[in-house]
């Protein structure tokens, strides 16, 4: 269970030297002078007048840029999560985006009597192995496609492609008919009660089916299942692997051969997969495994990659939009035709930014990594 003092202790904020490097690299601080990671730490630690309901704590994107830069490895993103938890406990109301529809669904998903119909989309050509103790964790893609249908996103396509790639690699897996949201977004919003309810429901489902290994494609689920569940649940011994981690070595050693796809693409590192899980090379190996694909790097890439401006479906503001605009401009600057990402949330947020920019000629296409890889497979067969 969570203990605020211990949580704050674990984030190492007491080592903060007040140097301000975090603020220099923070994408939010760049546009919003009221957001200052260094000052938030100083205020919370030194002053008794810190107003926990201060709006500033909600602007953080959890992009881990500050953590990357900090010489003393102060875990500011986790510190912010602890503060948000504190704020929610004291009665702060979270301003949810999209009318709170995703949060409502998450809360409903933690109900025990729930019987979701979430794998109806499964195409017939996907081979499931009934007796396998490996499960593919789909994530909220089916829900995203309903909520964001007007943005023209198809995150489920990424999932289906991921399953096809697993089939191609002959890795046996099965699906969970009643898997729940991983709960990371609720955790990021400080709703620890909601997060724990989902985590426990998922754990119950895993142990009921004797799951030993989980493959995920969504980086958020990956980070949550791998890092947050053991912290929250204690006795959690399930191995969690990312699809890119599994596929990249196979593609590199030419055990799977991807097809041809002639285009000029750039790769956008999702924060949780890149800085969070340190998977920088693997997605690029998958991309370069496609013949004809020319990979160009944006000015800010890998450890320095700019966030897609995502928030945990809360407090989306003009600043987020500016961050997104900046990312799209960086992709445009290298004249890439396609911006590839491996995260459904990045896809949704960048497409949303494009939509608000209005239809323009020469807008970069935003595609999903697994979708592209599976598409190139199709061209072979």
């Amino acid at each position, binding site marked *: 269970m969570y203990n605020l003092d211990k949580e704050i202790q674990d984030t190492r904020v007491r080592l903060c030297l007040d140097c301000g490097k975090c603020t220099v690299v923070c994408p939010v601080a760049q546009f919003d002078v009221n957001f200052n990671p260094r000052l938030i730490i100083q205020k919370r630690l030194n002053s008794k007048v810190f107003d926990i309901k201060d709006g500033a704590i909600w602007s953080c994107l959890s992009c881990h840029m500050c953590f990357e830069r900090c010489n003393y490895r102060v875990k500011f993103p986790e510190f912010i999560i602890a503060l948000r938890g504190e704020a929610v406990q004291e009665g702060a109301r979270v301003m949810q985006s999209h009318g709170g529809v995703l949060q409502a669904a998450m*809360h409903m998903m933690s109900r025990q009597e*729930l019987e979701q119909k979430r794998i109806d989309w499964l195409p017939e050509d996907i081979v499931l192995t009934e007796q396998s103790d490996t499960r593919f964790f789909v994530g909220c893609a089916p829900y995203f496609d309903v909520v964001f*249908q007007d943005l023209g996103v198809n995150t489920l396509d990424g999932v289906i492609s991921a399953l096809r790639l697993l089939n191609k690699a002959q890795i046996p897996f099965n699906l969970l008919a009643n898997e729940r949201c991983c709960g990371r977004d609720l955790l990021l919003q400080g709703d620890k009660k909601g997060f724990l309810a989902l985590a426990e429901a998922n754990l119950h489902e895993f142990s009921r089916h004797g799951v030993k290994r989980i493959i995920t494609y969504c980086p958020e689920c990956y980070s949550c299942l791998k890092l947050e569940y053991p912290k929250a649940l204690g006795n959690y011994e399930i191995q969690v692997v990312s699809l890119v981690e599994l596929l990249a070595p196979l593609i590199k050693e030419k055990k799977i051969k991807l097809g041809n796809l002639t285009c000029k693409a750039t790769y956008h590192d999702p924060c949780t997969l890149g800085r969070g899980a340190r998977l920088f090379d693997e997605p690029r190996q998958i991309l370069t495994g496609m013949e004809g694909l020319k990979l160009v790097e944006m000015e800010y890439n890998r450890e320095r990659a700019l966030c897609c401006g995502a928030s945990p479906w809360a407090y989306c503001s003009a600043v987020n939009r500016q961050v997104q605009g900046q990312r799209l401009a960086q992709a445009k600057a290298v004249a890439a035709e396609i911006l590839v990402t491996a995260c459904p949330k990045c896809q949704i947020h960048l497409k949303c930014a494009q939509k608000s920019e209005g239809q323009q000629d020469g807008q970069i296409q935003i595609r999903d990594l697994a979708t592209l890889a599976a598409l190139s497979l199709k061209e072979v067969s």
Partner: protein
Amino acid sequence: MNDSAVIVVFVCNWDGLSCIEAAAQKRLTFPSSVKIIRVSCLSRIHTGLIMKAFELKAEGVMLLGCDTHNCHFGIEESLIDVNYRKALGMMRLLGINENRLSLVRLSHGDGAGFIKQITDFADQFSEIPT
């Protein structure tokens, strides 16, 4: 009449509400468990609010608005249709019976029409599974 099912009715301030007022004037009754929430226009209602009602254990949600092409504000009426469709999609995934959400359009002052709609809607809950 099923008067135990908690039903949330989001009603638009114009033709929708006039139906409820007309029903009251004619002393027609409807189940006391029906919660009426008045909004300026049904376009105000988004998927989040509909799902929130289900999250708070409403058994049914009714969206009651003006007739098609008769919106008081003359704005694009399809807004509610989009949100209605999205809500149905969410319900399908969550395993909530789609009959638990209904979009009703009535003309001005149709009190009897409202009573019929709401009692039929409430009555089905004793029969449909979750």
